């Protein structure tokens, strides 16, 4: 089953995306969905996401292919929003379907770690006193190295 990869301004429906991975089939025993949301840390008023069109899709597709080679997946969905998002808004969805839960959990975790450290997105945080680009976190690099 081809993975669904979307970079979009629009919000997404987690339940609908999860259902789309399982509708009409009886071989899926586990679907793991991860949703990332905008936190209002330290008075954050908005988060603006920029990306590298073309490279983003290629990087995500490459890592989805790697996940599919490492775990017996029956479906994968990756949705990443771009543009200006407010606190509480959904940013990213990773959903992985498999016959059993371990593969679905691990593949979703792997894909999130790689989105954090390899997919060309950048976040600009805005607060009352100005805006600032988010710096990459060493913890994210360390998390990605586990795989």
């Amino acid at each position: 089953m081809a993975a669904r990869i979307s970079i979009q301004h629009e919000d997404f429906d987690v339940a609908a995306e999860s259902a789309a991975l399982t509708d009409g089939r009886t071989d899926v025993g586990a679907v793991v969905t991860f949703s990332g949301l905008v936190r209002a840390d330290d008075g954050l008023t908005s988060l603006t996401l920029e990306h590298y069109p073309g490279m983003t899709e290629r990087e995500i597709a490459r890592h989805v292919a790697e996940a599919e080679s490492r775990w017996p997946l029956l479906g994968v969905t990756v949705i990443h929003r771009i543009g200006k998002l407010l606190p509480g808004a959904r940013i990213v969805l990773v959903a992985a379907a498999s016959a059993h839960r371990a593969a679905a959990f691990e593949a979703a975790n792997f894909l999130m770690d790689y989105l954090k450290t390899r997919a060309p997105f950048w976040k600009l945080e805005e607060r009352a006193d100005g805006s600032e680009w988010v710096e990459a976190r060493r913890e994210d690099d360390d998390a990605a190295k586990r795989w």
Partner: protein
Amino acid sequence: MTLLYFAWVRQKVGQSEERIDLPPDVGTVAELAAWLAARGGGFADAFAGGRTLRAAVNQNHVGWDAAIGANDEVAFFPPVTGG
């Protein structure tokens, strides 16, 4: 060749994209960065030594010693922060 700039690199150099002829004596990403820094102003600021910049050639992450050619798309950006 096409040069692309993202996030604060784009802000410092004041543009998101430009087309240039591959300068003579520039054969790697590091040499291109040094050539751009020599323009001064926002370019010198963005490409100042010691700063953590990343690069991609033809939409693949590369190291600073990667070779570049006249028809390549080269992008410069800060470490990524997706997810």
